[in-house]
C-alpha cells in the first residue's frame, strides 16, 4: 500500500499544495485514507500528521474509515424533504440493513446524508459511487438495492434512459435531466463553437475587451454582484509572475443548479469565457473548481479541454497571438459549501481546509499561491463571451437600469415545472410564479438559505424597521404583498436559487430548521460567531416551536442575528437569515407558538415535571401557584 500511496504522491511532485488531488486519488483507489496512509503522506510531504488530517477531516467526502462498497450520499436539501425524502431514507435503511451515518455489517453499503447536490429539480437524489440517481422513490430504492445485492453494476441499474442533451454523452452517461424551461441568449446555441475566440477576440486589444465588459455593466453572477470589468481591470494592473483565472463551479447554495446545466450543455462557452478573461487580464493559469457532486461531468469536461487544445485555443501562443499562453486545469472539490467563497476556494486549491481568508488583501491582489487571481462564476464568464460577440450596447437592451442582461434562475419546490429559466433582470416574483406553474403559494425563498423568505400573508415591514438596516440579505423568504418586487441587484438580488413553498408546508419546522442545519453543518468554524451562533439560535427556535417561547425570545433572535454579522465571510454573515427573514416576513408564525405572548419565561413547567413521578407513585400533587 505504501508504494501505491507514494506513486500518487510522486505523480503530484510531492507538492503539498496538491493535497486535494492526492487525497482524491487515494479515495478513488480505495475509498478512504487511514492513519497508516496519513503517516506516509505526512512523511512524504513534510507535514505533521495532524496537518494532513486537518484537510481530510474538513471535507465531507473524505473519510478515514471505509464507507462501504457502495456509498450512498442522500441529498438533504429542503425540496428533497418536500418530495418524500424521509420515506426514501427509511427505504435505504431497511434495504441496506444499516442506519444513516454508518456502514452495513457486510461492508456492502454505507449510508450518509449530504447537503444539496444541485439536483433540486429532480429530487430526492443521491450520489452512489459518484453516479447520480434522481427522482428516488421507495420502490426505486428497493429495486436498486436488490439489484446491487444480486451483483449487478450501478450503470445497469439506472432505471431510466440517460438524461437529455449531453447528459447522454458517452463520457457522461448520466440520468440527470437538464430541465431547461426558458432560454434567451445564454441558453441559446446561436453561435458555432469557438467562433467567438477565433473570429472576434483578436479584433480587440485586451484593454478594449475590458472596456467592453465595463461598458456592459456586467456584474458577478455568483451572488455578490461585483462589477466584472472592474475586477478584470484590477487583475490586469497587479504585477505578478503569474496571473490566475478561476472559474467558480462550486455551486453550493441549496437550490441552485444552473451551473450544472451550463457546464453540461455549454461547457465550451464557459471555457471560452475563461480564455477571454485570460486574454483581457494577461493570465497564464486557468483553474476550474468543480464541486465534487458534479464529478460525473469530469471526464466529459476534460475532453472539451483536450479539444480546445487541439484547436490551439489553449496552450502556447493561443490563436498565434504572441505571449498568449494559457491552459486550464479542473480541480475537484470534496464537499464543502464554504469553498464556493472565493478565498476559501483558493485555500482549497492550495491543498488546505477551506477556511476563508481575511480581506484585504483580496484575491485580485494576492490569490492562488500569492498571485493576482480573478475568480468568476460560471454564468459570469459565459455572459462575457456573448457580450464580446454582440457588444455592450446590445447587452444593455436587456434588464433594468441597475441590473443589465439576463439571469439564470434555478426554480424548484412546489411548482409544476421546476428547472432553469433564463429571464431578464427586473422580472417580478409574480412572473416567476406564473412561469413555473405554481399555485397555492405560501412563501418563496429567493437566493437560497442565505437569501430571504417572502410570502403571501405578509406584513410589509421591509425597509421600515431599524433592523432592516442590519439585514442585508444576499437572498431571502418573500409574501404576496411583495410579489411585485423585482429580481435585481437593488431590490431582490440573487444567485438564482428560487424555492417555492405551498400552503401545506410548515415554514418554521420544515424549512427554517432545514436551512439552519445547513449552516451549522457547513460553517468552517473559524469565527467564534459563525461556529456557535447558528446552533444557539436554532436551540432558541426549537424552544419556541416546542411551545416554551416567550415574547422576549423573538427579540433575542433578532438581536443575536445582528451579532453574527461580524463574521468573516458571507456564510456567517447570512447564516441567521432563515430566522431573521422569517421573523420579518412571517412574524405571525412565531407569535402563534409563543406562549400567550407572555414576557415571563416559564420554560420550567413544574406540573409537567412531576407528572412521571405522580404516575409512578399513583398520587396527585397539589399545586399552590395558580
Amino acid at each position, binding site marked *: 500500500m505504501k508504494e501505491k500511496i507514494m506513486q500518487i504522491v510522486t505523480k503530484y511532485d510531492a507538492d503539498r499544495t496538491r493535497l486535494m488531488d492526492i487525497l482524491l486519488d487515494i479515495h478513488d483507489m480505495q475509498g478512504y485514507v487511514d492513519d497508516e496512509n496519513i503517516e506516509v503522506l505526512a512523511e512524504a510531504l513534510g507535514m505533521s500528521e495532524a496537518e494532513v488530517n486537518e484537510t481530510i477531516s474538513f471535507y465531507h467526502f473524505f473519510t478515514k474509515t471505509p464507507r462501504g462498497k457502495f456509498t450512498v450520499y442522500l441529498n438533504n436539501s429542503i425540496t428533497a424533504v418536500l418530495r418524500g425524502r424521509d420515506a426514501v431514507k427509511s427505504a435505504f435503511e431497511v434495504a441496506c440493513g444499516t442506519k444513516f451515518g454508518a456502514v452495513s455489517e457486510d461492508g456492502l453499503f454505507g449510508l450518509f446524508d449530504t447537503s444539496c447536490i444541485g439536483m433540486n429539480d429532480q429530487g430526492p437524489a443521491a450520489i452512489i459511487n459518484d453516479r447520480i440517481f434522481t427522482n428516488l422513490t421507495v420502490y426505486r430504492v428497493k429495486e436498486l438495492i436488490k439489484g446491487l445485492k444480486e451483483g449487478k453494476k450501478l450503470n445497469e441499474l439506472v432505471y431510466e434512459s440517460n438524461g437529455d442533451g449531453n447528459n447522454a454523452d458517452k463520457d457522461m452517461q448520466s440520468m440527470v435531466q437538464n430541465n431547461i424551461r426558458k432560454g434567451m441568449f445564454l441558453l441559446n446555441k446561436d453561435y458555432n463553437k469557438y467562433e467567438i475566440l477565433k473570429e472576434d477576440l483578436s479584433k480587440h486589444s485586451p484593454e478594449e475587451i475590458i472596456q467592453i465588459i465595463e461598458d456592459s455593466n456586467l456584474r458577478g453572477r455568483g451572488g455578490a454582484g461585483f462589477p466584472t470589468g472592474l475586477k478584470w481591470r484590477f487583475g490586469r494592473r497587479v504585477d505578478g509572475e503569474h496571473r490566475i483565472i478561476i472559474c467558480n463551479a462550486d455551486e453550493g447554495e441549496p437550490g441552485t443548479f444552473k451551473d450544472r446545466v451550463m457546464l453540461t450543455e455549454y461547457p465550451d462557452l464557459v471555457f471560452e469565457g475563461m480564455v477571454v478573461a485570460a486574454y483581457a487580464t494577461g493570465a497564464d493559469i486557468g483553474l476550474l473548481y468543480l464541486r465534487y457532486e458534479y464529478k460525473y461531468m469530469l471526464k466529459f469536461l476534460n475532453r472539451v479541454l483536450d479539444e480546445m487544445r487541439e484547436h490551439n485555443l489553449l496552450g502556447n501562443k493561443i490563436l498565434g497571438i504572441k505571449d498568449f499562453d494559457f491552459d486550464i486545469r479542473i480541480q475537484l472539490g470534496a464537499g464543502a459549501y464554504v469553498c464556493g467563497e472565493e478565498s476559501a476556494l483558493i485555500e482549497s486549491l492550495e491543498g488546505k481546509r477551506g477556511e476563508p481568508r481575511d480581506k484585504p488583501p483580496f484575491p485580485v491582489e494576492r490569490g492562488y499561491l500569492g498571485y493576482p487571481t480573478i475568480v468568476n462564476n460560471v454564468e459570469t464568464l459565459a455572459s462575457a463571451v456573448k457580450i464580446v460577440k454582440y457588444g455592450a450596447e446590445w447587452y444593455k437592451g436587456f434588464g433594468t437600469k441597475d441590473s443589465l442582461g439576463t439571469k439564470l434562475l434555478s426554480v424548484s419546490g412546489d411548482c409544476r415545472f421546476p428547472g432553469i429559466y433564463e429571464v431578464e433582470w427586473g422580472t417580478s416574483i409574480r412572473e416567476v410564479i406564473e412561469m413555473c406553474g405554481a399555485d397555492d403559494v405560501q412563501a418563496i425563498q429567493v437566493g437560497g438559505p442565505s437569501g430571504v423568505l417572502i410570502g403571501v400573508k405578509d406584513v410589509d415591514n421591509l425597509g421600515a424597521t431599524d433592523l432592516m438596516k442590519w439585514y442585508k440579505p444576499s437572498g431571502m423568504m418573500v409574501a404576496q404583498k411583495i410579489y411585485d418586487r423585482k429580481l435585481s441587484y437593488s431590490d431582490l438580488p440573487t444567485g438564482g436559487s428560487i424555492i417555492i413553498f405551498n400552503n401545506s408546508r410548515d415554514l418554521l419546522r420544515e424549512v427554517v430548521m432545514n436551512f439552519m442545519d445547513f449552516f451549522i453543518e457547513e460553517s468552517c468554524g473559524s469565527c467564534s*460567531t459563525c461556529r456557535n451562533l447558528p446552533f*444557539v439560535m436554532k436551540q432558541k427556535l426549537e424552544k419556541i416551536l416546542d411551545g416554551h417561547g416567550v415574547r422576549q425570545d423573538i427579540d433575542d433572535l433578532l438581536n443575536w442575528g445582528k*451579532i453574527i454579522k461580524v463574521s468573516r465571510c458571507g456564510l456567517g454573515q447570512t447564516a441567521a437569515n432563515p430566522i431573521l427573514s422569517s421573523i420579518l416576513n412571517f412574524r405571525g408564525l412565531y407569535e402563534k407558538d409563543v406562549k400567550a405572548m407572555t414576557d415571563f419565561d416559564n420554560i420550567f413547567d413544574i406540573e409537567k415535571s412531576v407528572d412521571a413521578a405522580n404516575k409512578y407513585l399513583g398520587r396527585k400533587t397539589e399545586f399552590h401557584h395558580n
Partner: protein
Amino acid sequence: MNDTIKFKIDSQEIVAKKGQTIVEAAKDNGVYIPTLCNFEGVKPKGCCRMCTIKVNNRFMTACTTPAAAGMEVENDSAELNDIRKSIIELLFVTGNHFCPSCEKSGNCELQAFGYRYQMMVPRFPYNFPQKGIDASSPKIIKDQNRCIMCKRCIKTIKDEEGRNYFAFQNRGSELAVVLDKKLGKEMTDELAKLAMENCPVGSIIYKEIGFEKPIGTRKYDKQPIGSEIEV
C-alpha cells in the same frame, strides 16, 4: 520618505507607520482595541472577532486590516462593546469554563474579558457540551473543554522543519484543535511551556507543575486586561 499616515479612531487622531495594522497603530497611540486570537509576531487571522471595529461604517477586524490614511474607525462604542461582550459570553457557554478549578485562572484572557465587560449571566443558555481531554503527551494536557479555537498554538508551536504540533480537526460546531500524536510525544519542556504560555485560556496545561503562583497574585488579578495599553 513620508512613512507615516494619519487616521482617526473615535475621532482621536492616530499616527501610524505604513504597513501597521489598526490594532498595532492603536496600541502605539495608547488606544486599546480588545484582541483575543491575535498574537504578536505571527500573521493575524480574525478568528475570535473581538477586535471588530467599524471602518467607514463597515465591520472589519482591526487585527487584520492595515491602517490607511484618512480612515474613520469606530472602536469604543456601545454597539461594538456589546458585540464584544456577547462574543465572550458565547465562548463561555459553548465550552466548559470552571474558573475556580482552572490552573490558568488569573492569567486567562477569556476570564479577564469576562471581568472587563462585566459579564454577569450570559445572554445565551449554557450548553455544557461533552468535550474530551487529551493527556497522551508526556508534557502537556490538551483540555478541549476550554479551547476557544484561537489558533495561537497552531501558528506558534512548530518543530525545526516547520511542522505544526497543533492542527484543526473537522469543521463548524465540531471544530477542535488537536495535538499531533507523534510530535506530542517528543515535545521538549521548553516548547510545552511556551504552548501553555501562548494559550490565552487553560486549554494547554504543562504537566506536573501546578499553581506555582497562587491565584490572587496573577496577571489579571491585579490589573484589568487592556490597562497596559490604555492611557
